[in-house]
């Protein structure tokens, strides 16, 4: 494997704190009268997509905005519970842009870019201002000012929240802004569309091909630039906290058209989810990290102790996070919390019927603050838990276990959020740029909105103003017809296989392979095995899948087939990436590389880089490229939360 193309992240020169300001000044501008001459496609309507579409339209661009659901308001950002970080320092507890930057870089185990992360920390403050102006009902104290709480990986309170529905409220704010632009005619909405291909003309992204999920029509749309805000690929594991329709297809199609995929093996396993309880299960439900502010995580000290939690005396409980990490306690970062929970369960100390769970106990918090106070902070989460499990967390500890939640990997982008394809921009979870090898809680909402409201409006202007555009028309330019043909052939192929296994069966099997071998801990042997298993499963899929119905209709089995077919290729890319990274860092825990205390052991000498993969053909090994990470402002150290 050799690195042939030098990946240039285009980080501006100058001191860290001045990079973004300088860059904004250096970017070319599109004059107000000319903005209306440009068409921009935005795929996705989550926090990144909706905020980008709304803001670009506010500036005067013509936007076509696509989503897979029936309404832009359904995007999965809506399910984010806990909050959004911002370096406001309203709590007067020592926060600053620098500290948010540093916490994020350290939390990501030094595998993110300094320049991008610093910009994110700077913009965090603008986001809160804008969201309040939009009418987001954030939590407030009795004086009427905004309230904050703490999240993992930080020792300050910088998380703004709206009960346990922060994502919902922020998304509805972005959605409202978007609908305002729909009313002005600057945004045209295309709901119930799935992007199935990216169209490039002369090496530039100039349009997309979609399937109308109601009629089955294969449709084409042209533009001067394409913005992907299509979220993460956590559903490659089948079971995750993601919504059912969340998928990798749009990003993967762009990868196949030449966009490099960065760090695909970086997937976040969230420590506090409701445990798996049956093979029929369709998804896992997250219990917000904010619960770790007041909940204490424990297991019985004795392996195999099957007594009910109330029967286990204090002296026979192991509060393993508090004991091992006294300064951060229950608020260690997600990767650390997850790995420790797994470790306890592997020792036979797991609880519940499956033994794959640990307790999250609120008894002390309730005794200290009263049930009312706890209900005020987490009431809706407790209700949700009770609905799903039938158990009352006010009376008995919650049972939690790690589950796939977020993907730090994504399409490679430069400082302008442009991929390796000119004119293809990637925002939010779909890109890779800000969270390194582990994302801190309450930072996903921050990144999605920073990208959409405050980064892309500037950087896309720089691209549009500095680029010569050939005339392109979706109805006439041959690249569109070629792409439609390919998409149609694939749909026809799915429907003609007529085998004996359902799409879900393949998805479940793939998920188990990845969870086992490319999940919370990995090793070379398991990864090599997984690669063969995935290849075999993929072969079987194309010979033996059965998809009912037709292509000219709403056909949810057909939609899923396309997504699972892409996962069956993408899963192998994840495994390749995990194999290539011969170190441990953040979420990527290769058991061969660990410290004496079982923490992830980085190899900064050889792996302080972004791994970016270039598609070279079906069944070909993708080409590896390296973007070295340069740290000029922080010192690389072994992460310690003790």
């Amino acid at each position, binding site marked *: 494997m050799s690195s042939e193309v030098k990946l240039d992240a285009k980080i501006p020169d100058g001191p860290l704190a001045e990079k973004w300001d300088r860059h904004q000044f250096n970017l070319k501008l599109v004059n107000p009268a000319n903005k209306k001459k440009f068409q921009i496609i935005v795929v996705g309507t989550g926090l990144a997509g909706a905020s980008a579409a709304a803001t670009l339209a506010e500036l005067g661009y013509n936007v076509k905005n696509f989503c897979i659901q*029936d309404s832009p308001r359904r995007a999965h950002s809506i*399910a984010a519970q806990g909050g959004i970080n911002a370096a406001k320092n309203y709590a007067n507890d020592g926060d600053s842009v620098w500290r948010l930057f540093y916490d994020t870089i350290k939390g990501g185990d030094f595998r993110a870019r300094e320049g991008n992360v610093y910009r994110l920390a700077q913009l965090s403050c603008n986001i809160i201002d*804008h969201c309040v102006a939009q009418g987001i*009902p954030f939590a407030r104290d009795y004086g*009427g000012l905004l309230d904050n709480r703490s999240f993992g990986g930080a020792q300050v309170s910088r998380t703004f929240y709206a009960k346990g529905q922060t994502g919902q409220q922020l998304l509805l704010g972005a*959605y*409202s802004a978007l609908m305002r632009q729909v009313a002005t005619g600057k945004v045209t909405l295309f709901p119930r569309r799935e992007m199935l291909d990216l169209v490039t003309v002369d090496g530039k992204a100039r349009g997309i091909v979609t399937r109308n999920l109601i009629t089955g029509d294969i449709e084409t749309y042209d533009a001067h630039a394409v913005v992907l805000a299509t979220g993460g690929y956590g559903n490659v594991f089948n079971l995750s906290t993601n919504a059912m329709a969340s998928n990798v297809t749009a990003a993967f199609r762009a990868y196949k058209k030449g966009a490099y995929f960065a760090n695909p093996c970086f997937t976040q396993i969230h420590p506090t989810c409701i445990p798996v309880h049956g093979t029929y299960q369709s998804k896992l439900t997250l219990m917000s990290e904010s619960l770790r502010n007041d909940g204490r995580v424990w297991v019985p000290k004795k392996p195999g102790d099957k007594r009910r939690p109330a029967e286990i005396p204090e002296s026979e409980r192991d509060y393993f996070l508090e004991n091992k990490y006294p300064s951060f306690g229950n608020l260690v970062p997600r990767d650390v919390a997850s790995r420790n929970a797994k470790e306890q369960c592997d020792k036979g100390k797991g609880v519940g019927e499956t033994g794959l769970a640990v307790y999250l106990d609120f008894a002390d918090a309730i005794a200290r603050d009263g049930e009312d106070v706890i209900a005020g902070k987490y009431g809706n989460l407790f209700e949700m838990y009770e609905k799903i499990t039938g158990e009352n967390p006010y009376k008995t500890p919650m049972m939690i276990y790690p589950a796939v939640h977020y993907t730090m990997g994504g399409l490679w982008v430069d400082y302008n959020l442009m991929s390796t394809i000119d004119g293809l921009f990637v925002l939010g979870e779909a890109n890779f740029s800000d969270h390194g090898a582990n994302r801190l809680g309450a930072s996903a909402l921050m990144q999605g909105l920073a990208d959409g409201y405050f980064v892309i409006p500037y950087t896309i202007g720089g691209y549009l103003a500095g680029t010569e555009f050939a005339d392109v028309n979706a109805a006439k330019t041959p690249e569109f017809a070629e792409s439609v043909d390919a998409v149609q052939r694939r749909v026809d192929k799915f429907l003609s296989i007529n085998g004996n296994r*359902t799409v*879900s069966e393949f998805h479940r099997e793939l998920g188990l392979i990845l969870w086992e071998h490319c999940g919370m801990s990995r090793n070379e042997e398991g990864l090599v095995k997984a690669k063969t298993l995935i290849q075999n499963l993929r072969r079987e899929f194309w010979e033996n899948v059965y998809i009912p119905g037709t292509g000219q209709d*709403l056909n949810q089995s057909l939609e899923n087939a396309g997504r699972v077919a892409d996962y069956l290729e993408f899963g192998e890319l994840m495994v390749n990436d995990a194999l290539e990274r011969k170190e441990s860092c953040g979420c990527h825990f290769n058991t061969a590389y660990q410290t004496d205390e079982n923490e992830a052991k980085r190899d900064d000498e050889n792996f302080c880089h972004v791994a970016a993969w270039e598609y070279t053909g079906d069944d070909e090994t993708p080409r590896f490229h390296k973007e070295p990470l340069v740290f000029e402002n922080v010192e690389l150290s072994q992460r310690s939360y003790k």
Partner: protein
Amino acid sequence: MISKTINLTLKVWRQNRSDKIGRLETYPAKDISVDMSFLEMLDVVNEDLTRQKKEPIAFDHDCREGICGMCGAVVNGRAHGHEKETTLCQLHMRHFSDGDTIVIEPWRARAFPLIKDLVVDRSALDKVIAAGGYISVNAGGAPDANSLPISRDVAEKAFNAAACIGCGACVAACPNASAMLFVSAKVSHLAALPQGKPEAARRAMAMVRQMDACGFGNCSNETECEAECPKGISIIEIARLNREYFKSEFA
């Protein structure tokens, strides 16, 4: 994990596009774990149908944690089923008994044309929001977030209205297929906050007009919407909407 299972009979509305005639089809749902959600139960039935090479039941769903508002069906005559303040994806099978027959139908309203089986077109709700369900502010230039203190009670009031997930159950439950609870939730959320006040009256007028134009019915205080709302939105919001609406009429 071994848990209690039950056997059920489903009567499900099957219809392909709104111009064809629909019908209730009967399917057995066997060995259903009581820990399943309603949608997971439908998944199991759909897997069975697929294995028999029959077309599965189309239904909308996405987050499966009760917040996206994508799912919804009328279950035994009740929008999202009989559990209070629960979306269909959060309705669990432990609330049903062995041997039950369950009738499952789509939302029925003139403003929600049927697409297929249990899937309906709710884009009318987006049109109502586009008519005025926002505060007119562009990105950039907002003042510091703490420059405008808002009392905790007011923030709470706004939040309670803003909790609407736009699922359309209120419309499905209303004998007039009115969207008043939906409209009032947004009007009330924004009118409660100082940032939303300048446009409050205009917003109420524009959204109500759009609701009428989309073919939703009028409110006649049946309060079925409040009873079925999975997020517990109160009809007090409708009273607040009326207040804003009258202001716009007489201002």
